[in-house]
């Protein structure tokens, strides 16, 4: 318990969390501080490229085990299953419509790559090793949740005079699969794997050294967006929905803990899988929902994912997940 508190305290006072808090506070206070969209996208590309590459270089060094395959399957299954839990939980405790509940559920099955990065940054600080291939698991978990959500909606609708909405057309399937973050993560992972430590040595000064600092600046931006969302759209979130935004990460994390230990991941790997399960998407899934479920209200799912779950994971969640993983696996 003490260890958990120490870990949590260290995390709360890390530059990562403090820069996020600065952004959040600035947005709440209506400061005009803002990061240009192009710079935010550039940083996001940088982070994806860097973690993809480092993950691949890690695999090149340590060799690929049977576990990668297992972990990929487990990740895909978790991403597909979690929305079911999320959906029925939401329907039980809140008054969200079927469509809104399904759209929210999709976000929680998918992942937030910045939360992933925050966890790896915490693992690095704590000196805990983890499998390089977890970045590929992250990539594979982006999409399956979307299918589950659309299935939930079409199931619910088939009873009545359903509209043709909520169907996964092939075009959307392609868009989701070739989503920029998946392509970049998997692509950089493959390049890191092919070029190995030699390749890493070449571009280390770009993708490794300044990484922590870029992450701080990116989290400042995340804080600004989350704060702006909470300021403008808190009214769309009824208390049970907010409660869901804190409960669901915990449920996801427990699932990740169980599955991660089952397939024999390291303590760090389990902590990452927990984080992936606990985190909610804010890039790939919202865009897909706008196309496939336009009636679902974006103010609900974006505000919940960015304004509630992301801050919760960043400030409290990841310390907790690491502590739990160490407790169970250490």
């Amino acid at each position, binding site marked *: 318990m003490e260890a958990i508190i120490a870990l949590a305290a260290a995390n709360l006072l890390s530059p990562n969390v403090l820069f996020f808090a600065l952004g959040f506070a600035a947005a709440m206070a209506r400061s005009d501080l*803002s*990061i*240009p*969209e192009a710079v*935010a*996208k550039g940083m*996001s590309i940088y982070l994806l490229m860097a973690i993809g590459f480092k993950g691949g270089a890690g695999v090149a060094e340590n060799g690929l085990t049977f576990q990668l395959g297992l972990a990929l399957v487990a990740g895909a299954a978790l991403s597909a299953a979690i929305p079911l839990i999320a959906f029925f939980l939401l329907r039980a405790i809140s008054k969200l419509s079927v469509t809104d509940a399904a759209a929210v559920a999709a976000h929680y099955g998918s992942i937030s790559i910045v939360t992933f990065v925050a966890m790896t940054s915490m693992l690095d600080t704590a000196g805990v090793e983890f499998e390089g291939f977890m970045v590929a698991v992250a990539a594979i978990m982006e999409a399956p949740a979307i299918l589950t959500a659309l299935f939930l909606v079409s199931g619910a609708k088939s009873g009545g005079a359903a509209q043709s*909405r909520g169907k996964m057309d092939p*075009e959307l399937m392609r868009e989701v699969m070739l989503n920029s973050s998946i392509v970049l993560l998997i692509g950089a992972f493959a390049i890191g794997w092919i070029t190995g430590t030699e390749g890493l040595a070449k571009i280390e000064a770009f993708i490794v050294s300044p990484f922590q600092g870029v992450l701080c600046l990116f989290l400042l*931006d995340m804080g*600004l*967006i989350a704060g*702006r969302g909470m300021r*403008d*759209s808190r009214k769309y979130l009824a208390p049970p929905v907010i409660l869901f935004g804190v409960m669901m990460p915990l449920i996801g994390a427990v699932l990740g803990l169980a599955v991660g230990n089952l397939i024999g991941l390291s303590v760090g790997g389990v902590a990452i899988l927990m984080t992936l399960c606990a985190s909610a998407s*804010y*890039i790939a899934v*919202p*865009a*897909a*929902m*706008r*196309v496939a479920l*336009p*009636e679902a*209200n*974006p*103010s609900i799912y*974006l505000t919940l994912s960015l304004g509630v779950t992301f801050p919760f994971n960043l400030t409290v969640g990841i310390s907790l997940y690491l502590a739990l993983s160490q407790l169970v696996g250490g």
Partner: protein
Amino acid sequence: MQTYPAKRIEIIIEAPLLHRLTRVLDQADVPGYTVLPVRAGSGRSGPWTREGQVTKAGGMNAVVLVCAADRASGILDAAYEVVAPHIGLVSITDCEVVRPERFE
């Protein structure tokens, strides 16, 4: 300079739908269109801004399309089918152009 009447259609549409709209416009064989970035806005679903965004879910684009008057209705129908179920806006204005044959 001699000018000829035409129609200017302006569509504001959410970013994730842009490609679907332009595909439909291409299929309708429109004479051309231009996409302008949109920075922020407000409507029934509240205010939004593009600043700092990494998600394109919340962004919008403006599509401007000039066409011959007799083609406007058909193009409007095609565009409206994409826009209708989504966040967006269509307006049409009378305008004048110099080379009318380009907008058939």
